[in-house]
């Protein structure tokens, strides 16, 4: 088990390195530099001397390969560079924001799990029932729903019309501010999870050991609790983990909509400002988040189901 864990953890390092390289390559071909966009008013050409000085300050006067060496060297020391705009270390900016993102992702996932798992379970135990049909129609609809539109409608109804909840912002960090963005972000994972849970439980129900359990005279409740639930949980845990990893990517739009101070809104603002070090840093952090969670899921999966390790 330890060897498996170490191998899986080591495997993510090359991926991170390649992603870092890819991000650097993409952004080193950006037409229109930060200096131009900062100094130009769109009509007159900016003063070349001023441009040169700004480029020198930002280290942009050096050739690409030199900048790349500096970038990789800094990265190895966990230095993500300095923001062009605020002149503060990127890691510091991300550190300020990542907790809000984490809070939002965890809340969204809790909402999704609490609703989706029981629904998927009940739907699978009573296939063809009204509950089953409603759950599955809801799941397909949830997957097609533009989340930010749902967020907009929730904001309209619960914040602007009924005045029950704040319409945007982090506020003092209370739960009230978290509810609307978390529900909005949680809808897509909810739909996917309900579908997966239902399919997983149906699969288990068809297993030979379930028939055996029935045959030896266990009650329906005992069969479900002892045999079905335990086996279906493996799939559910894996899905929850993978969905949690991908949440941070989807959160970008939701954070922007609700003016939630997470790294998603940091990314969007930095793209608009052409603050490239912050954009590079945030994307890298998001990818690392995704990979770390996926690896953790693999390890947990191997712990729960020893067959996986063998591969």
């Amino acid at each position, binding site marked *: 088990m330890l060897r498996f864990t170490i191998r899986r953890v080591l495997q993510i390092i090359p991926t991170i390195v390649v992603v870092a390289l*890819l991000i650097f390559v*993409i952004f080193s071909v950006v037409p229109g530099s930060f200096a131009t966009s900062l100094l130009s008013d769109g009509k007159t050409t900016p003063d070349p001397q001023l441009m040169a000085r700004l480029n020198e300050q930002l280290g942009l006067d050096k050739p690409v390969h030199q900048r790349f060496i500096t970038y990789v060297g800094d990265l190895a020391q966990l230095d993500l560079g300095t923001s062009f705009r605020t002149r503060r270390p990127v890691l510091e900016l991300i550190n300020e924001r990542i907790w809000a993102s984490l809070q939002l992702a965890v809340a969204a996932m809790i909402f999704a799990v609490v609703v989706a798992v029981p629904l998927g379970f009940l739907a699978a135990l009573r296939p063809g029932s009204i509950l089953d049909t409603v759950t599955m129609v809801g*799941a397909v609809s949830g997957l097609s729903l533009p989340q930010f*539109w749902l967020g907009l409608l929730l904001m309209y109804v619960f914040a602007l019309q009924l005045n029950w909840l704040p319409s945007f912002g982090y506020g003092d960090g209370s739960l009230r501010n978290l509810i609307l963005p978390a529900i909005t972000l949680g809808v897509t994972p909810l739909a996917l999870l309900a579908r997966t849970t239902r399919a997983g439980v149906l699969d288990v129900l068809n297993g030979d050991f379930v028939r055996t359990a029935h045959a030896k005279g266990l009650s329906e409740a005992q069969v479900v609790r002892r045999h079905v639930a335990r086996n279906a949980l493996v799939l559910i845990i894996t899905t929850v983990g993978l969905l949690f990893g991908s949440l941070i990517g989807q959160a970008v739009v939701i954070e922007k909509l609700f003016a939630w101070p997470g790294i998603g809104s940091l990314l969007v603002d930095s793209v608009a400002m052409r603050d490239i070090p912050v954009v590079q840093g945030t994307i890298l952090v998001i990818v690392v988040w995704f990979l770390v969670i996926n690896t953790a899921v693999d390890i947990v999966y191997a712990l729960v189901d020893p067959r996986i390790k063998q591969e």
Partner: protein
Amino acid sequence: MKLGFNLILGGALTALVILAGLLAPWLAHFDPVLDADLMSAELPPDSTFWFGTDAQGRDVYSRILYGAQISLTVGIVSQIINTIIGVALGMSAAYWGGWWDDLVNGLTNVMLAIPSLIFALAVMAVLGPGLVSLLIALGLTNWSWTCRIARSSTLSLKSLGYVQAAQTLGYSDPRIMFTQILPNIMGPVLVMATLGMGSAVLSEAALSFLGLGIQPPFPSWGSMLTDARQMIQIAPWTAIFPGMAIFFAVLGFNLLGDGLRDMLDPHMRTRKL
């Protein structure tokens, strides 16, 4: 027969969106960009303005029809790019194997590690906003799953008799790939492409909503929602109708993809819906 249901409803919704886009010049009551009239701004839906008007007094119904053109263009073109990249890489990797296969596999794994919306956002940041940038960004984003499917399907076909017969006859590698393998992996690839259209439409709407996609005054469903956000309290219809358009278009593509999968591959049949 639930199986036909997905296909029929999905096909009908998709056909509706395609018709709306194609017939927009005839169905629209007003010009989506030029017919702005502040005297008729923020009017609720009535017999002249079926879906009401926006802050500039433009007809929301007409803008949604023209918006279908943008969504469809983005959905279809980006998926053609994705499919070409994915199939070319996946099929050749499985067929040739060796270092090329390792390279393609590595690249696919890296792409799968970057959330697709984030990758598209990065490409948009480099290329700048606009339709062409969107097509490139979304065309480069979602090929990894297609590549995986093309690769695994090719692997299983490679050892079959008719492929080996073609090799014995001395057919060139590209000829074998195009005439013997490609026709037989098109089913799952087509399913991926259809499902991908749904997510491309969603991504376009999200990027335009963030101000990185289609720029005003052109009527993208996503950018219409950006405008609607400012005035949702006074004119909620400006938010409701474009969102419904996105929802039904994506639902159509998703159901069509599911339906196609059920039809083409009975083994992968999703149990009802």
